């Protein structure tokens, strides 16, 4: 397949994914809007007003806002690719792609782009909702954007791995429930990990979400508990490792070819 054909194939997959996201908007875009509004109301307004400032000039609701946006991005990027690609496997639509001359990276790229798009849509919605509760503004747009893209890509790749190994729909639901949600809650969304006692403080530094949340917080508020360069190194490292792993799985046909 020549490069024009590959681009057409990639565009087809991305268009298909975006159409899917918009077609089932009540399942893809509405739930995070409602959930995050409740987070802002309960944790931000009601409880947060009693917590006080988390950093000089930064209220609790402003402190958690970047984390809540990042949490939505991560969960939706992961959920989009795992459900969509497992659906393709379940309905045997994946075979149509595998027998086509599309290279593996195009299949991966198309699904990841779809997941990042959903993450972006949800991120913008949640950021918009946060504007009703806070006065945050983009402190560093480039950091905000790159962090968002890297985090969405990492969790899209993880969702892809989950979908490849999943044999039934329960397998797609189990990782977000038992791994993703705990990691997100313990990733410094609602608190400063520096406040944790040892060894939980050190354990928290093994959580990749911590680096994403803090880099995103830096982009929106200009404050972070983690060095920005270190955050980027962790995120880029994960993208490279998970991306290569996904391509190997696709090439070997693990979970896809009998």
């Amino acid at each position, binding site marked *: 397949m020549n490069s024009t054909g590959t681009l057409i194939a990639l565009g087809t*997959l991305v268009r298909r994914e975006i159409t899917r996201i918009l077609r089932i908007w009540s399942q893809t875009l509405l739930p995070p809007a409602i959930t995050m509004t409740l987070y802002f109301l309960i944790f931000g307004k009601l409880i947060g007003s009693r917590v006080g400032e988390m950093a000089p000039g930064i209220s609790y609701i402003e402190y958690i806002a970047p984390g809540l946006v990042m949490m939505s991005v991560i969960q939706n990027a992961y959920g989009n690719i795992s459900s969509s690609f497992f659906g393709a496997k379940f309905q045997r639509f994946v075979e149509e792609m595998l027998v*086509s001359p599309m290279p593996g990276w195009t299949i991966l790229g198309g699904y990841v782009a779809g997941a990042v798009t959903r993450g972006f849509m949800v991120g913008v919605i949640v950021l918009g909702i946060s504007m009703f509760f806070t006065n945050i503004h983009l402190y560093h747009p480039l950091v905000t954007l790159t962090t968002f893209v890297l985090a969405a890509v990492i969790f899209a790749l993880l969702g892809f791995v989950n979908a490849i190994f999943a044999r039934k729909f329960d397998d797609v639901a189990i990782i977000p429930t038992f791994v993703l949600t705990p990691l997100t809650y313990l990733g410094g969304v609602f608190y400063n990990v520096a406040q944790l006692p040892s060894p939980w403080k050190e354990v928290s530094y093994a959580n990749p979400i911590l680096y994403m949340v803090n880099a995103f917080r830096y982009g929106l508020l200009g404050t972070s508990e983690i060095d920005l360069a270190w955050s980027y190194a962790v995120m880029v490292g994960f993208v490279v490792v998970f991306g290569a792993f996904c391509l190997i799985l696709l090439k070997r046909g693990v979970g896809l070819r009998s």
Partner: protein
Amino acid sequence: MNQAGFYGVPRKIAAERAEKYLKELALWDKAFHVSRTLSGGMKRRLMIARAMMNEPKLLILDEPTAGVDIEIRRTMWKFIQGINAAGTTVILTTHYLEEAEQLCRNIAIIDHGRIIENTAMRNLLGKLDVETFVLDLANPVGDLPTVDGVKISKVDERTLEAEMSRAHDLNSLFAALSARGITVVSMRNKANRLEELFVRLIEANDKVAA
């Protein structure tokens, strides 16, 4: 449209092909329906239209007309003949031997997973040495006529069966029947020629295996 995209077909060309093949397979009025709401026969035609979106050189169809009505079957035959004439080689698996005889130039017969015959359709039909004809008569027949080289049996008062070698001509049969005052109003093969041949090949193969 997605299928075409996976093969690098630009969207504009894909849209033209989608319209062309859906119209040829009598599905254009369902173009904007959700595929899972289509009937079994429609889904089968949709699969063929989808397979044609990248206009392959080789198309493998696995029992494409199984369970579809006669009108649709003929539409599909016409379509398959059309794409074959346009340059696509078609490998067709079917249990309908009439379909195989109508559509195929080359034929392979599979018995218990083994190919027992693989040749040109003309060569295969040439192997059929005996044919059985069913004769519908104008009036009830009494005693059975005898004709050299033809085995005649009575099905009912107005119907005869004549089993004869392909080397034997039909004129002598008709002449003998006319001499006995028997008028034949119509005639047909008892079974499809390929079907007869198929049954004999399978039986011969079973005997060898036994």
